[in-house]
């Protein structure tokens, strides 16, 4: 079960995925999400760095290169906090399943790779909900670099870790940065009990493993009635003309 930072249990379930760029974690999370929805569960989704309130500030900082390792850390923590307070926590209190693409471990890995004190970053995120299961998609560095860099003309400044001054060449810098992030992740596997998935396995094999780990936690998760209006239409032999008008139609997911 998911727990508040102070250990108090929440009725919902929180599953999160972690891994470096190109590990395939987002694909796996998407497959998990579709499967859960197919099973009739009520599923909410939250993505790293997507808070509508904080996004403009982050964008501004990146575009004008105003961010230092410490402000980079704090602005991402603000983004996370907003999503936690407004998306994840309410859904978990209601008993829903919440899926998060990247979680606090992304910050722990990246910020430490940028030279921020690891203990301080953990303190900053001290308010975070403890997930039900945290998956780490482990992939050989060379493999992930190949996936990311293939057909990609240009790396962004912070994405490549150019702010660290490791190298003036974005590709060299990116490689070094990613490799130091991998080291951070590997250290966290034990610290936080991350469930490791071998991301070099075939897609469906990974998905089966993920499903097998998730399934035992689903017993009392909240179900959502989907397209319940269909039964009424069928029983009453209606066409649903006015459902079309309000934008509810059979074509929607």
């Amino acid at each position, binding site marked *: 079960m998911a727990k508040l930072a102070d250990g108090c249990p929440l009725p919902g379930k929180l599953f999160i995925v972690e891994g470096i760029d190109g590990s395939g974690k987002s694909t796996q999370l998407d497959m998990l999400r579709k499967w859960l929805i197919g099973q009739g569960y009520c599923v909410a989704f939250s993505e790293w760095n997507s808070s509508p309130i*904080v996004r403009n500030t982050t964008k*501004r900082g990146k575009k004008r290169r105003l961010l230092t390792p*410490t402000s980079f850390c704090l602005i991402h923590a*603000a983004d996370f*906090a907003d999503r936690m307070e407004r998306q994840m926590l309410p859904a978990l209190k209601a008993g829903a399943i919440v899926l998060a693409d990247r979680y606090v471990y992304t910050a722990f890995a990246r910020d430490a790779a940028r030279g921020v004190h690891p203990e301080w970053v953990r303190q900053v995120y001290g*308010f975070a909900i403890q997930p039900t299961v945290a998956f780490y998609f482990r992939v050989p560095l060379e493999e992930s670099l190949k996936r990311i860099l293939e057909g990609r003309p240009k790396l962004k400044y912070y994405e490549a870790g150019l702010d660290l001054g490791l190298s003036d060449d974005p590709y060299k810098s990116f490689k070094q940065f990613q490799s130091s992030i991998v080291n951070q992740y590997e250290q966290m596997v034990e610290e936080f009990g991350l469930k490791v998935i071998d991301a070099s396995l075939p897609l469906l094999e990974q998905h089966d493993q993920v499903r097998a780990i998730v399934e035992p936690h689903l017993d009392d998760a909240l179900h959502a009635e989907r397209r319940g209006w269909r039964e009424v239409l069928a029983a009453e032999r209606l066409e649903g003309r006015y459902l079309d008008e309000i934008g509810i139609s059979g074509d929607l997911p």
Partner: protein
Amino acid sequence: MTEVQFYGHGLPGLKKKRLPGRLIVLEGTDGVGRSTQSALLREWLEAEGYAVAATGLKRGSLAGKGIKAAMSGHTLGNITLNLLYATDFVDRLERLIIPALRASFVVLTDRYIYSIIARAQVRGVDPAWLRDVFGFALVPDAVFYLHADLTHLIPRVLNARGFDYWESGVDFLRAPDRYESFVEYQTQILAQFDAMANEFGFVTVDANGSIREVFETLQAGIRDVIQDMKPPKHVKGKDK
């Protein structure tokens, strides 16, 4: 700033042990006259020949605008708002305050982490977490805490801009009207400041008096802090 000292873990990358400037903080509740005093002190210090840099909450180029926009929507959670404040704070610290201290400026800041901590604590945010997060803040050379009683504050606030939504605690208090909310909120904030005066070693300045009286008290206090700074050549002997 003779010795660089942080409240907690400090900033990565600051190698210097000493910074020749001085960091002076004015703290106090809304309407106590901080901005007026800062403006007067800045002009006085400049006339004395010091280089002065002035800053204050929400004035950073990274997050200042974002905080104001977010606050105008009234949808911010407590943790989010505090992390935005922290972002703005560290942005000004790293890109304005520390470079100025390195260049021997007197840095005058209108509010510091204490205001942020006070407003967060009355809203129930964990005090230990706040101190951890703001552990990167430099310990200032002096913190002058302007303290005025509520009876003195109310007419000043009304004269200036009325009872602000956030400064009246409307976001979390359940008072029947904004005046009562303001009174309740400011009472709680004052209690927080009074409790922090000891913890953080504030110099408490009685701000019930006239602007001139308060200014002269601050002037005397600041003279003590800057007296051993090398006086600029062209005013040598004029100071004192």
